[in-house]
């Protein structure tokens, strides 16, 4: 899979996993267990779809191999679908909509609206995304649990366009009473330029200034770390700069310092298995 797509899916998976972690005030509420059920139902359906997809491909491959053996002409394999079609998501969207509605303006509805944002992104359905985004930025604007939504707005640029996505982020920035939400929204809005604009451009400098402002306005260490990491990645960990040292213990338990390898050419490979 394309590394950027994989990254996006990874982030979505993390957001999905963490959205049910919010500490419960007095045991798991009804809304929380309903949300968990909804998410688990969706995960299970997706796992089933993946499995069927894999089986289908395996069957096709076996047929092709047999045809090849028999000396028949072999048609090319169709590409494997990475995501289900839109209608796969519809029953889950319908369920989430009903549940969100049942909680009205209460904060308990936010989890379902976030789920709908995610469904909108995954099924590439603008209406689903926009409706949930509007509810979050108007009805639920006073909630302190909107940081994750801000990050989802950031990934909506390709679905709803940059102006619309930024409009939601601006609404959070302007109207949220919580500095953590405002900071997350600012950072989400400027991340693209901070990551990609040339470091000598006005766009980069403006984005950097806003990111630093966001980091300064909140106590949230995640935001501070992200800002530092984004700027470091562009300014200090670039070609021509001296790398930071790594000091630690390797997988075999041997102590190790990256600077031990001074005088050699080093290839650092950051990898994962997923």
């Amino acid at each position, binding site marked *: 899979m394309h590394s950027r797509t994989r990254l996006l899916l990874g982030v979505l998976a993390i957001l999905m996993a963490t959205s049910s972690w919010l500490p419960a005030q007095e045991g798991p509420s009804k809304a929380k267990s309903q949300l968990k059920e909804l998410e688990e139902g969706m995960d299970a359906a997706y796992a089933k779809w993946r499995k069927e997809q894999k089986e289908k491909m395996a069957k096709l491959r076996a047929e092709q191999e047999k045809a090849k053996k028999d000396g028949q002409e072999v048609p090319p394999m169709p590409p494997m679908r990475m995501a289900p079609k839109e209608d796969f998501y519809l029953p889950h969207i319908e369920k989430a909509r009903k549940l969100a509605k049942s909680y009205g303006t209460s904060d308990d509805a936010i989890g379902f609206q976030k789920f709908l944002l995610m469904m909108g992104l995954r099924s590439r359905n603008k209406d689903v995304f926009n409706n949930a985004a509007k509810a979050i930025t108007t009805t639920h604007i006073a909630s302190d649990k909107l940081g994750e939504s801000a990050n989802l707005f950031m990934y909506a640029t390709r679905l709803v366009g940059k102006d619309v996505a930024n409009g939601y982020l601006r609404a959070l920035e302007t109207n949220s009473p919580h500095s953590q939400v405002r900071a997350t929204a600012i950072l989400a809005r400027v991340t693209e330029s901070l990551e990609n604009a040339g470091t000598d451009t006005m766009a980069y400098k403006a984005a950097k200034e806003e990111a630093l402002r966001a980091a300064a306005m909140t106590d949230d260490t995640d935001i501070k770390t992200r800002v530092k990491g984004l700027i470091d990645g562009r300014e200090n960990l670039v070609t021509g700069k001296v*790398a930071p040292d790594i000091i*630690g*213990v390797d997988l075999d338990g041997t102590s*190790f310092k990256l600077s031990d390898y001074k005088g050699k*050419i*080093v290839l*650092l490979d*950051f990898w994962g298995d997923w």
Partner: protein
Amino acid sequence: MKEMKNRPFALIGVNSDGDLDKIRAIVKKKNLNWRSFQNKPKGAKNPISQDWAVRGWPTMVVLDEDMRIVYRGHNGNQAISKVKMLVKKLESSKDL
């Protein structure tokens, strides 16, 4: 990687999975005979990927003999050709 034996080169893997046993199993299975780390080694304050601002995987970083970054990106072939070039250069400068 065999051709790099006894040459001024080191490959260091930084694995970003959380599960140490799983990493050990993979390293063993794939017979990775180079030094490997978990992203957050014992005694480190931050995960390595955080200090190095790594946000996408895989990421390759090539360092020259003075620990200066010469390449940083996601393209393995580019990284390896850079390494080959630098190792050659380093060896020839030592021969002089």
